[in-house]
């Protein structure tokens, strides 16, 4: 039983945490692609930017969360989402909009987004330095140990993990309701389907583009903050998620928000399972194994330091065998 708890803690919990973050990141990437038709490489640094906003607000008001019994960073999240959305819309107006009105090819937009990402990286380091900082400025991360009867090892969940699950569910349900119920949400899907017809229907496409950046900026802030709450704030933390997030968006089928969620969890769990030490699960049967078969101490598929090859492999495999992804999306 101990081994199963171990599996739960290190695969189910860890995989869900990674999956949630990839999913929220990939939904942003896929929404931007479906409305603006380019791969937004600055998305990861937009996550960091949002987290930076949370960090600065938390440093300014370290005890704002105390009355609610929540980490201050979570209380500051909505404010940071609004600020980041504003910056995202500003970036669009300053850099992407002029290119769009010239009718450039998507690849030019992609390169422009690389420029934006470099710029954001510089700005973020200017304000936050290069070191890592804890988002729990003046408080302690709570760790919950849930004892399972008859087992010595407890299930371990941390406060940021629980917050992460709750916020992910709220964000996904909220986005679903917006896209299927709200007039502007439907218009967003319409524009993703057929931009010319959306215009011919009187849909204000500029408004939809602005809305897309607001949603993308908000989701990026959520993903970055939840990740940094679980780990810590580092200027390059989210940047290294760029590959898995794009892998998730492509696996799910680019342009499909639900596909991006599925892709996020698929990539997250694939990564977690690949670095999991399977030897632990085999320990109970070690004594019954024949003597010539010695159980190695580490039976992981790849070492933790090579985790990044997993999404890379998934990405290559999907692009070769099913470039439209699980849900038949667009081909980038």
């Amino acid at each position, binding site marked *: 039983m101990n081994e199963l708890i171990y599996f739960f803690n290190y695969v189910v919990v860890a995989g869900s945490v990674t999956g949630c973050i990839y999913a929220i990141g990939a939904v942003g990437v896929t929404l931007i692609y479906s409305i603006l038709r380019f791969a937004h490489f600055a998305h990861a640094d937009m996550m960091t930017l949002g987290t930076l906003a949370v960090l600065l607000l938390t440093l300014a008001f370290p005890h704002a969360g105390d009355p609610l019994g929540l980490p201050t960073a979570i209380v500051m999240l909505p404010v940071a989402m609004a600020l980041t959305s504003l910056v995202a819309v500003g970036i669009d107006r300053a850099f992407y909009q002029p290119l769009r009105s010239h009718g450039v090819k998507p690849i030019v937009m992609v390169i422009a987004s690389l420029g934006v990402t470099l710029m954001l990286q510089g700005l973020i380091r200017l304000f936050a330095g290069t070191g890592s900082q804890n988002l729990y400025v003046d408080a302690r991360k709570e760790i919950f140990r849930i004892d399972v009867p008859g087992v010595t090892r407890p299930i371990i969940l941390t406060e940021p993990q629980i917050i992460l699950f709750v916020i992910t569910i709220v964000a996904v349900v909220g986005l679903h309701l917006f896209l299927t119920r709200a*007039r502007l949400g*439907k218009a967003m*899907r*319409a524009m993703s389907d057929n931009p010319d017809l*959306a215009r*011919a229907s*009187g849909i*204000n496409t500029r408004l939809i583009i602005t809305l897309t950046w607001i949603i993308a900026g908000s989701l990026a802030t959520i993903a970055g903050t939840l990740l940094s709450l679980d780990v810590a704030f580092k200027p390059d933390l989210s940047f290294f998620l760029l590959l898995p997030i794009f892998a998730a968006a492509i696996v799910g089928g680019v342009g499909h928000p639900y596909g991006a969620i599925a892709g996020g969890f698929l990539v997250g769990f694939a990564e977690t399972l690949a670095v999991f030490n399977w030897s632990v699960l085999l320990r109970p049967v070690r004594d019954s194994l024949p003597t010539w078969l010695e159980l190695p101490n580490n039976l992981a598929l790849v070492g933790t330091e090579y985790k990044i090859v997993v999404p890379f492999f998934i990405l290559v495999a999907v692009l070769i065998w099913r470039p439209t992804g699980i849900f038949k999306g667009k081909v980038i």
Partner: protein
Amino acid sequence: MPLLEAVDVHGGYGGMNILNGVNMTIEADEIGVIVGPNGAGKSTMLKAVFGLLTITQGEIRLRGEAITNLSPHKLVEMGMGFVPQEKNIFPSLSVEENLEMGAFLKPATASRLKAQIYEFFPPLLEKRRQPAGELSGGQRQMVAMGRALMNEPSLLLLDEPTAGLSPRYMNEIFDRVKTINAAGVGVLMVEQNAKQALRIAHKGFVLAAGQNRFSDTGEALLNDPQVAKSFLGG
């Protein structure tokens, strides 16, 4: 005052003129049909009316008001509806959502109009929750026309509404166009099925090389031996 007037319209894409002086007039209760050989500029003229290409010379007026080179968005607000020949639906949206998008500018009237559209195109009612992309060609055309009608246009522009449809659906669509017109909507449509289209047309415009070759009532054009010989296949 005519609903739509086009006077000596010149225009095209990227400096290349396709229209070289097109004239047409449609009254508020009329169906106008543009026919002519391939490359005559039929669809281009329709797009020029809807502000989808640059008009370099001439003028277009809607109820006497100059609308030359206004944006499609503005024209929709002024009561124009446009159904493109291809890609005229939102394939992943349900039939109902397609219709709602047509009423994007008038959300308050959406539910009343939706009921009317379902009455008008009964096959759409049972398919209203289905993605429009899964429908048959004729039903998709109904969705496309329904979407444009949701804005309660005074002028409906149809680009080859019967292209690729079976004769049964073709006649049904022409019937619907007549009914729409009888309800007080002016129609301007481009058609390949010239004879059938001219039969329901009050006004017909035969275009060739971006200019009017013949303009008359639909009936007169059908009976004109010269038009019949050169453009209607004898």
